[in-house]
């Protein structure tokens, strides 16, 4: 009886969650069919994996911005930590695990662990701050990560791993291989990231975030967002929960970074700069803070849009900006929202 009541009460929310899963699965099937029947152009096919990675980034940042309510401007930093640690792992494992999907999975897990660690270390000073100050410090840490990776050298030889900072002083034995070459990044990456892998990662990210949000931790995140003082007065450990959300978000960003990087043959730290952080934030804001499906759709649209506008050559970024402004205005318009909600197939049941 109680369990059924619990389900009933949560029905509206559960429906939104299942709708999100359903749309993601449907979109995956359609894209998969279209790409196998050569209906998609090759440029579009090449964008499937980056789109998945950006979607995971949007979900991951939404956990911090939408659920925890703290603005983070350095999310690309965690993506790059994941990208570099993931790709390095994949290269190191090349000889041991010939089966690419397993190598990819291990690389993504390692990437998540490294990014989570980076998130933890950065979280210690950052989460003592509030609001704008927190945002600016995350921005700074994003740039710090970029600078560190731009000056990081990692090589492997028969004696094991060697690394150095600023210049290549790894002194590898003959037969050794330099994996990360500072500003040159990593080159010669095997493109083992696939669209199905991206889809699975997105589903896992959604499952983690949705299940976390509907648990005591998620309630604590949202309580801290809504009223910090009240949250403290009912005995919530603010620092612990902020850290939990931040680290989880960083871990997801890390595995998205690994997926993203293994879709290209070369990856450099400058790819994950402030612009990327802002782009991910735009996905979240455009899709609606705390709205996972919105962020996912925004990520897809804003990744495809610049490509589709390529034919307008020099007016491309101008058009992109105009479309962005129009979309922002439209999604905040009450009448348009009303119109969109009319398209929702569950709407009548919810009202009843």
């Amino acid at each position, binding site marked *: 009886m109680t*369990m059924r*009541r619990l389900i009933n009460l949560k029905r509206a929310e559960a429906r939104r969650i299942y709708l999100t899963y359903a749309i993601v699965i449907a979109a995956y099937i359609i894209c998969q069919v279209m790409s196998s029947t050569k209906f998609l152009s090759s440029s579009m096919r090449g964008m499937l994996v980056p789109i998945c990675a950006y979607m995971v980034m949007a979900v991951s940042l939404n956990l911090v911005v939408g659920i925890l309510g703290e603005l983070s401007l350095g999310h690309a930093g965690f993506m790059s930590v994941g990208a570099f640690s993931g790709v390095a792992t994949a290269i190191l494992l090349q000889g041991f695990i010939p089966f690419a999907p397993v190598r990819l999975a291990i690389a993504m897990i390692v990437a998540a662990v490294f990014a989570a660690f980076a998130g933890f270390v950065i979280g210690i000073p950052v989460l003592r701050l509030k609001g704008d100050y927190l945002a600016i410090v995350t921005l700074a840490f994003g740039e710090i990560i970029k600078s560190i990776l731009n000056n990081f050298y990692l090589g492997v030889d028969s004696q094991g791993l060697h690394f150095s900072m600023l210049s290549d002083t790894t002194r590898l034995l003959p037969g050794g291989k330099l994996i990360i070459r500072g500003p040159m990044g990593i080159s010669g990456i095997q493109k083992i990231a696939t669209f199905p892998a991206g889809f699975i990662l997105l589903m896992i990210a959604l499952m983690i975030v949705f299940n976390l949000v509907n648990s*005591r931790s998620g309630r604590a995140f949202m309580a801290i967002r809504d009223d910090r003082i009240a949250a403290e*007065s009912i*005995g919530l450990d603010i620092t612990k929960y902020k850290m939990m959300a931040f680290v989880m978000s960083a871990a997801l960003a890390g595995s998205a970074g690994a997926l993203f990087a293994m879709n290209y043959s070369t990856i450099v730290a400058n790819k994950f700069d402030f612009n990327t952080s802002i782009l991910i934030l735009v996905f979240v804001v455009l899709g609606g803070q705390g709205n996972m499906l919105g962020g996912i759709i925004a990520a897809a649209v804003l990744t495809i849009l610049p490509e589709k506008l390529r034919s307008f050559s020099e007016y491309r970024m101008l058009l992109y900006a105009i479309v962005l402004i129009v979309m922002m205005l439209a999604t905040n318009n009450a009448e348009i929202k009303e119109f969109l909600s009319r398209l929702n197939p569950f709407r009548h049941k919810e009202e009843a």
Partner: protein
Amino acid sequence: MRSKTKYVPVPSKSILPERDAGRAPVLECIKLGITLGGIKAVEDFNLTVGRTEIVGLIGPNGAGKTTVFNLLTKVYQPTTGTILLNGQDTHGMDTRQVNKAGIARTFQNIRLFRNLSVIDNVKTAMNNEMNYNMVSAILRLPNYRREEVAAHRRALKLLSIFDMQSMADAPAGSLPYGAQRRLEIVRALATNPSLLLLDEPAAGMNPSETADLMDNIRKVHEMFQIAIILIEHDMSLVMNICEGICVLNFGHIIAKGTPDEIQNNPAVIEAYLGRKKEA
């Protein structure tokens, strides 16, 4: 609902020797004081509250009533004095630890988690009695389901005290004003306090709502057998339900006693109405 009485040694910072924590008053403030920006906002505040007492804290605006609450809940750390909670020194605790030790409060300007549903507001307050971890939550393991169902049941039961179970699913921010105040009390009760601090619970309520609130406070007091301190400007409410009243003015206690004593106390009348002009 309450833990069993037992002897506990009191930390050395306390000024009292080992004593019976079970029979000790729930709250003892000894020479409590705080200086805020050079002003002694509260000074020499001594108050003892029994296990199941309802105490009113009254005084003109700016007398330091809410500051006392902020001291008790460690929003401010006192500059002088000791707070003993169930015989235990709260020195060095923060807001969260004081809540765990048994103080829950409501706020003068309502502080609900506005975007959470009513029931989630209550369940959030039960966070510390749930044990499942993040992994069980993500994988929806059996202990997650068990604890969530138990919490849900208890939250509904608590809401039903105030006849709010029908609103369980509505966002807390959308409730009418009176219901928001009631929800704040439910949320505070969900943390299993031994002392409940109510900061102007009747503010902005009409007389019939105030009467309902009075009944509700009595009901809570009877059901949970806890001590309550309430700050209130509505004298009929205070005089009706409080067993003891403490009057503050300019950060000092000017009178303590039963409602009858307070009503006839010249110092209190002076604080509220001003000094009578000598003819």
